[in-house]
C-alpha cells in the first residue's frame, strides 16, 4: 500500500534520508563482501588491503545513521510505523556494520592465504559467497519495498548457507587429516566460510527486523524457543 506523506515535510525528508543512508551502507557492505572474496579467489592482496582500509567508511556511515535515528526519537517522538521503522533502522545499521567487519575478517584471511600455495581450487566458497551477497541484497530490498515475502525468502535461503558451511568444514577436515601441512591453510579457509555463514545470520537478522517493521510481530529467535 502506498504510504501517505507526513503533514510535516521535514519529518518526511528525515525518514527518507535514513532510508537512503541504509541503502548506501548496504551497497558499501555488499561491495566489501564481493571484494574480499575476489581478493581471495584472484589472489589479489592489494584488493584485500583495500577492503580492510575502507571499513572506516562503513563504520562512519553506521554511526551517522544511528545518530540520526536517536535524534529522530528525541525530537520527533515517532509512533507506530515510524517508530518501528526507526528502531528497525538502528538494528539494521548495526547488522550492516558487523557484516563490514566480517568482510574485513575474510580479507585478512585472504592476505595470509595469498602468501601460500593454493590448497585447492575455490568452488564452494565463491558459490556460498554469491548466495550470501544475494541474501544481504534481498534483505535490504525487503526493507526498501516493505515486502514481507522477500523477507521470508531471506530466511529460507539461510538454511542453504548453513548446509554449505557444514559441507566445507567436512571437506577441509579430510584435507587436514590427510596432510598436516594443510592444517594452517584449511583453518584459514574455515574461518572464511564461518564468516560467510555469520554474514548470512546478519542478513536474516535484517529480514527479521523488516518483518517486525511491517507487522509489529517479533519473529527473532523463534526457532530457538522451547515448544
Amino acid at each position, binding site marked *: 500500500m502506498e504510504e501517505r506523506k507526513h503533514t*510535516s515535510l521535514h519529518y518526511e525528508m528525515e525518514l527518507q534520508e535514513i532510508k537512503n543512508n541504509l541503502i548506501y551502507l548496504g551497497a558499501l557492505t555488499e561491495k566489501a563482501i564481493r571484494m574480499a572474496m575476489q581478493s581471495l579467489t584472484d589472489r589479489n592482496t592489494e584488493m584485500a588491503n583495500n577492503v580492510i582500509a575502507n571499513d572506516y567508511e562503513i563504520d562512519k556511515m553506521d554511526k551517522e545513521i544511528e545518530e540520526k535515528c536517536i535524534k529522530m526519537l528525541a525530537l520527533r517522538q515517532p509512533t507506530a510505523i515510524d517508530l518501528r521503522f526507526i528502531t528497525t533502522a538502528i538494528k539494521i545499521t548495526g547488522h550492516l556494520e558487523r557484516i563490514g567487519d566480517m568482510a574485513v575478517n575474510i580479507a585478512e584471511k585472504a592476505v595470509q592465504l595469498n602468501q601460500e600455495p593454493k590448497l585447492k581450487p575455490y568452488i564452494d566458497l565463491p558459490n556460498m559467497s554469491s548466495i550470501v551477497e544475494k541474501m544481504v541484497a534481498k534483505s535490504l530490498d525487503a526493507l526498501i519495498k516493505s515486502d514481507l515475502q522477500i523477507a521470508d525468502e531471506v530466511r529460507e535461503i539461510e538454511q542453504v548457507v548453513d548446509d554449505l558451511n557444514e559441507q566445507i568444514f567436512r571437506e577441509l577436515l579430510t584435507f587436514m587429516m590427510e596432510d598436516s601441512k594443510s592444517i594452517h591453510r584449511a583453518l584459514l579457509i574455515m574461518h572464511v566460510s564461518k564468516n560467510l555463514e555469520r554474514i548470512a545470520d546478519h542478513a536474516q537478522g535484517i529480514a527479521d527486523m523488516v518483518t517486525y517493521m511491517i507487522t509489529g510481530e517479533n519473529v527473532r529467535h523463534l526457532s530457538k524457543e522451547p515448544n
Partner: protein
Amino acid sequence: MDSHIIKLHKVNFYYGQTQALTDISMNFGQNRVTALIGPSGCGKSTLLRLLNRMNDLIDGTKVEGEILFEGRNIYAPNIDPVEIRRKVGMVFQKPNPFPKTIYNNISYGPKLTGVTVADMDSLVEQSLRQAVLWDEVKDILNKSAMNLSGGQQQRLCIARALAMKPDVLLMDEPTSALDPISTAKIEELIEELKKDYTIIIVTHNMQQAARISDETAFFYLGNLVEYNKTEKIFTNPDVKQTEDYITGRFG
C-alpha cells in the same frame, strides 16, 4: 464482577440536524485511564460531555442509544442529572476556580448539594492532599484562589471535583493551558488518582495520551475508529486511519 463502570451501546448524538456521534459502542474500565484522541470536531469532547449529561445544557441536542453508568441508564427519565454530575466529575481545559477563597472553592460543592459533612476541614485537607496541592496552600487557605498559578488553579479544580467524592473524573484537555512542569504534575496526579477513580481524558497531545493512559480511543468524524490498549495504538495500531493520525499523516 464486571469491571466496566461506563458502557455505551449504539450511541448517536445530534446538535440539531447535525449528527456529531455515530453508533458509538464502547466500555470504560474501572480504575483505568482512558484517553480520547482525534482531530478537532471528531466528537471526542462531545462524547466526554455525554457521560455526565453536560450536553443537556445545550438546546436542540438529542441522544439515542444507551449510556450505562454503574448499570443504570443515565438518560432514563427518572435520573437526576445533578446526581450523575456528582458521581461523574469534570475538569475543564482552562482552570476555572470560583472567585472565592481556596477553602471555599473546595467546600462550596459539598455544601451546595446538601451533603452533610461532619468535618469540612478534614474534607478540604483530604481533597487538597489528593490533588497534591495541600503543602503549597495549607497556610493560605483563606486567600483568594485567583492568586494561585495556572497549574495550582487546575489542581485546585481537580481537588474541588474530588471533594464531591465522584467515581469517575472526566478531563477535557486539562493541561493544554499549562506549562510543562505543571503538566507533569497533573500527569503524575492522574497516575495517583487512578487507584481510586476512573479517569477519562480528552487530549490533543498524543504524547500525553501515550504517557498516561491505559486505553486509547481514536475518533474521526463522529465515529469510533479504533479503541485499544494504548501501547498497541502507539506501536502497531490495527486501523490505517489511526496510524495516519498518530504519525502525523493526516489532513
